[in-house]
């Protein structure tokens, strides 16, 4: 946990020092303290990544440094020193001169961090106004920072409202606001988590450049070890409020000591899937599938061409990953294949039978064979239905006697790792990962031949993701169904896919065996995606266990 000075020559003088900081939780929390006796420091020009999953307390540290902890979370121990001086008590008015001027903070959802009814320019100018910058100097400075963060047409951006900016642009604007007064420390609380992979890569590059230019110290809070691999000089890992490991980034990545750290790293760099069989019989064949969403009426008609001439094959027992960013049409494609939408043109054949035009009873019969696991485990289960009833519902719908269906449901719940008493409880009593297991059990109750997983692990913590992916693989080898796995996360795709389809703007731009696509991508977009995925390349050399 203590490190020797690194880098060429000069002694390392930390700008921020956190020593044995302890913040308490209100009495009804699940533990006594949000963070317990954590210590770390950051020097100018250095990036420290604070890594942890949800509930680890990693955001609390950032709030404490800014003096923004709520009343309910009191500091009960430890000190925070910045630039040689101790910080004032929480919410003290002295913080006003510190915030943004000496320490700046940016948050996860940049769009939501901006007042929707005021222009970008006016909100940035406000920061200057509040810190006493004379009126005449405000606008030039605002335009200057907007230019600094590589936003095109700074004047137009300054005149724009937040909703007119894309996610990446909004994050740049927020970073610009943070830099207006040239602070020494930037705290970034998961700023790229909600962004596309390529946008994330741009923002990370931007932050790295700004750090170099301004000798910024950066405290980067994240749950993603891929990001750590890409930008961290030093890393500190948190679990349940405790700092379990810290040190130089390359040391920790190459040689993680603590089991929790190892688990997090393994989740990002899983061993690539070994092809167990080369079964070639296609079970589903889609040809030139098109889907257009139409909306509006009279002069206001809008058409969104979500799926364009998609052709794909899924072979029995294999796993196909469909990879793409938001808006690529991958979820729409899933809905087409699930026959939750009527396609506009093309053909979908399941086991030699055309299913694109099925309706009514034949369509419902088909549903036995193609099942789905959705993204959000918190809304995928009827809150008024017991878990057992939810899992048994599929077979009951298709004619199985209820008692028999319930017995089978109980077996399936056991198979996915839930206890015997789980069946009688309601979904609200389970965690996200557990609910997703229930959804998988529900999908398997009908013994489908094809399972479509639409971002099925995206809403889960990193360590839980690994467990669920293992579960999928395990069940697949047991029951032999094919999987179509939709994801935006290349690491996930790498862990489970036999074949990969890359989608962009409704079209498939590349497809092939996973090993080939990852090793030698042909399409420029695929290459860009792989280059942008944080940390992916660091692990391809087979470093971690």
């Amino acid at each position, binding site marked *: 946990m203590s490190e020797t000075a690194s880098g060429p020559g000069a002694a390392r003088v930390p700008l921020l020092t956190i020593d044995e900081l302890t913040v308490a*939780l209100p009495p009804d*929390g*699940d*533990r006594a303290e*949000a963070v317990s006796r954590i210590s770390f420091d950051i020097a100018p020009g250095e990036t420290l990544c604070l890594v942890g999953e*949800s*509930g680890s*307390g*990693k*955001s*609390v540290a950032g709030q404490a440094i800014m003096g923004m902890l709520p009343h309910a979370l009191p500091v009960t121990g430890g000190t925070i020193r910045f630039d040689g001086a101790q910080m004032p008590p929480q919410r003290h008015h002295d913080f006003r001169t510190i915030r943004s001027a000496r320490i700046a903070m940016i948050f*996860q959802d940049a769009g939501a961090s901006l007042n929707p009814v005021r222009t970008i320019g006016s909100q940035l100018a406000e920061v200057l106004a509040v810190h006493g910058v004379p009126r005449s100097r405000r606008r030039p400075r605002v335009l200057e920072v907007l230019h600094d963060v590589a936003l095109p047409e700074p004047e137009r951006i300054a005149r724009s409202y937040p909703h007119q900016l894309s996610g990446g642009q909004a994050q740049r604007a927020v970073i610009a606001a943070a830099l207006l007064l040239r602070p020494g420390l930037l705290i970034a*609380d*998961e700023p790229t*988590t909600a962004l596309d992979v390529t946008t994330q890569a741009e923002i990370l590059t931007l932050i790295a450049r700004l750090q170099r230019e301004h000798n910024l110290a950066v405290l980067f809070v994240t*749950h993603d070890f891929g990001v750590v691999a890409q930008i961290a000089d030093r890393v500190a890992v948190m679990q349940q*409020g405790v700092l379990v490991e810290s040190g130089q980034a390359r040391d920790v990545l190459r040689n993680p000591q603590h089991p929790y750290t190892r688990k997090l790293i393994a989740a990002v760099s899983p061993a690539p899937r070994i092809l167990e069989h080369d079964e070639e019989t296609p079970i589903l064949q889609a040809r030139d599938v098109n889907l257009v969403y139409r909306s509006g009426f009279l002069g206001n008609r809008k058409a969104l061409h979500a799926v364009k001439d998609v052709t794909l094959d899924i072979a029995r027992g294999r796993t196909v990953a469909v990879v793409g960013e938001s808006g690529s049409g991958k979820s729409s494609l899933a809905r087409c294949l*699930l026959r*939750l939408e009527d396609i506009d043109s093309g053909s979908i054949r399941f086991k030699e039978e055309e299913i694109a035009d099925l309706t009514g009873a034949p369509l*419902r*019969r*088909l*549903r*036995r064979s*193609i*099942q*789905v696991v*959705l*993204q*959000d485990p*918190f*809304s*995928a*289960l*009827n*809150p*008024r*239905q017991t878990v057992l009833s939810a899992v048994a*519902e*599929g077979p009951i*719908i*298709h004619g199985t006697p209820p008692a028999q269906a319930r017995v089978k449901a109980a077996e399936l719940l056991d198979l996915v790792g839930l206890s015997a008493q789980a069946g009688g*409880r309601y*979904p*609200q*009593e*389970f*965690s*996200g990962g557990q609910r997703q297991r229930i*959804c998988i059990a*529900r999908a398997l109750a*009908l013994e489908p031949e094809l399972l479509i997983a639409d971002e099925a692990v995206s809403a889960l913590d990193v360590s839980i993701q690994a467990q669920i992916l293992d579960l999928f693989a395990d069940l697949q080898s047991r029951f032999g169904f094919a999987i179509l796995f939709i994801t935006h996360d290349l690491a996930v795709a790498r862990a489970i896919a036999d074949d990969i389809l890359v989608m962009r703007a409704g079209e498939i731009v590349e497809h092939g065996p996973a090993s080939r696509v990852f090793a030698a991508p042909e399409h420029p977009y695929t290459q860009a995606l792989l280059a942008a995925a944080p940390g992916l390349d660091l692990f391809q050399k087979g470093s971690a266990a």
Partner: protein
Amino acid sequence: MTDVHSTAPLARKRPAIPLSVKLALGFVALFVMFALFGHVLTPHGFRETSLFHRLEPPGSEGYWLGTDARGRDLFARLVTGAQITLVVAIVGTVIGAVLGSLLGIMAGAQRGKTEAVIVAAIDVQASLPIIIVALFMLAMFDNSFTLFLLLVGLNGWEVYARLMRGATLQAKESGYVTAVRALGATPARIYLRHVLPNILNIALVQFTVNLPLTILLETALSFLGLGVQPPLTSLGQIMSEGRDRLMTAWWLTLLPGAIIFCLALSVSMIGDWLRDRLDPTLRSER
């Protein structure tokens, strides 16, 4: 993502009932008992007149709450008035709830032309306060009790319709409905077993908001002389009769008025409390 509370299963504690709500429940219970059994406590009928005991103040012998200009016992009249007000309020609110909810669900489920017609009807109703509609109807048709009941029943149907349409649309897009659809469920099963149970408590909450408003509408119309007609009486109707003698026989207006106010207040407080308890954001833990 940045919260510190765990996502592990937890047991929900049942929150205690606040004192104010307990008092409100108590009053409502008292009122209902009064309406149902009040006549036992007085020897006089609500239409029984007496020439010798006109305009007697409360506390007079034989007449606990006094008499009106025709010598009728105010207590007895209040009991009957309470019965009628209660019946009109409950039946009326139920009519509005059922009609509005059905239309709203239909609009959300069917879309297309059905939805367009229902939405247009909602817009029209939203442009006309129900009291205006009621007055318009009462100007043209004879004021029968049935008509009056129907008009009061229309109070707020468009709010139910709008709420249930929104809730149906939302439920249709929700994860569990998509999943059950993918299981092969028929539309009937989807609506009856999955959508309806989850949107019904929105209608229930609106019911508690609507009930005091219906009470106030009925009493207002009766107060204007355009509601419940003699020989029937309601709390508002009693007030309209006593209104001219406000200075001399204040008990004829203020006593029924106070009961109306306390009833509306109690029901509204109970409704607020129920709404807090049934709020969907409390039901599922993240």
